């Protein structure tokens, strides 16, 4: 039997707007993924602990508060410390273009800004899955 793809959708930081995160979570479920949603205002530590317990292949981070430059890399770093760097981390939210290169070099595999479609996110996940199955 094929291994199911499990995705954690997490909201670090202090903003309480999770409509976007829930929209993505539902969209990914409808695309056939098992999606775990953490709820708002999660610390990087609890997001990483959750990802490990749930044995997810992906973490999607949603943030509108502007603290992405600090929180996103912190989560990648904590994963590394737990030897869980095989989990693919992507981010979304209101993120200025000039911040993206820096986030990518910190280990985020993709950044989706407000214009991105669900289809683009699914294509990203599928291409990562493809690479994974090859290795």
């Amino acid at each position: 039997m094929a291994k199911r793809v499990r995705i954690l959708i997490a909201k670090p930081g202090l903003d309480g707007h999770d409509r976007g995160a829930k929209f993505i979570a539902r969209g990914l479920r409808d695309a056939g993924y098992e999606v775990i949603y953490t709820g708002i205002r999660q610390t990087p530590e609890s997001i990483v602990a959750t990802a490990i317990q749930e044995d997810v292949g992906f973490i999607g981070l949603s943030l509108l508060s502007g603290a992405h430059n600090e929180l996103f890399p912190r989560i990648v770093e904590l994963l590394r410390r737990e030897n869980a760097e095989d989990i693919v981390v992507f981010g979304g939210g209101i993120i200025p273009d000039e911040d993206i290169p820096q986030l990518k070099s910190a280990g985020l595999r993709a950044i989706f800004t407000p214009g991105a479609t669900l289809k683009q996110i699914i294509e990203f996940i599928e291409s990562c899955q493809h690479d994974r199955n090859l290795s």
Partner: protein
Amino acid sequence: MARAITLIESGGSEGEALIDLLYPHFGPARIIGVTGPPGAGKSTLVDGLLTELRRRGERVGVLAVDPSSPFSGGALLGDRLRMARHAADSGVFIRSMATRGHWGGLTLVTTEAAGVLQAAGFTTVIIETVGVGQSEVEIMSAADVVLVVLVPGAGDDIQALKAGIMEIGDIYVVNKSDLPGAAELAAVLRFALRGEGNPALDESEHPDSGHADSGDPNTLPGPVHAPQIRLASALNGSGLAELMVTLEQTEARLQASGELDRRRRRRSATELERIAQAAVRGWLVDRGIVPVDPDQLLREFERDNRGPHRFIRERLEEAIRNGNRLSGGASK
């Protein structure tokens, strides 16, 4: 451990080998089942129980089951949303599981996943079923003790009385007791489950009105033990400490009467039966008697166009004639 559960969920021979390896360590942890209709507050209640159990020094594993979509196969697993404050506690392990087409309120491998948690040193395992009204009976064989969570509200009491849900609980939690109607629902439950009072006349509206342990349990209605009824508000925490006391008393009583032991043995028997069925099916698939794809079997059946029993029997007989005997060591 998280990987181990994934392996078991995937259902391959690796997972099976792992189970056999860990099996000697499956063990004495208590398993608490939490069931009830959608939105009754099961996850919120588990969150509250986690706090109580942690206070008692227990290490707690939670298996939270939510339904897979029958259309996409995907799932939105939202139970742990309500338990977020325990996410960073290393004494708590929460795992969300999707039903993946399994019907009955749990996943196919819930019992085995609970075993893995026990082998990893968790002293209590809590299983939250999907909230689907009437098909949660499976929790009865998966747990040592079953909590049924109900809420006051229009039509709920009548619905509850009809459903099989009234036969599976050891403790009935009337949750959301901060909302109106809780005492009435509790009275209806007391009448229906314990034969106490007439709900129309009952005036005992207090959670601890002395009904709990009145009389000899053997003279009360119900399969073995009369269920307990407790009011709680999982949201604000009221009634949870009392609920924990009731839970511990109930467990003690189940143990003393030998019922706990009977339940655990029944669980093992159910598991063996399930494994046997899966093995037989695997055997049939391996030999091409039954195709992996059920639609293909259907197409062949339609071509055959005779009775279904005869169709299957002849396939089996043909396979046996061809030397695939089910006897002796050949079935290994």
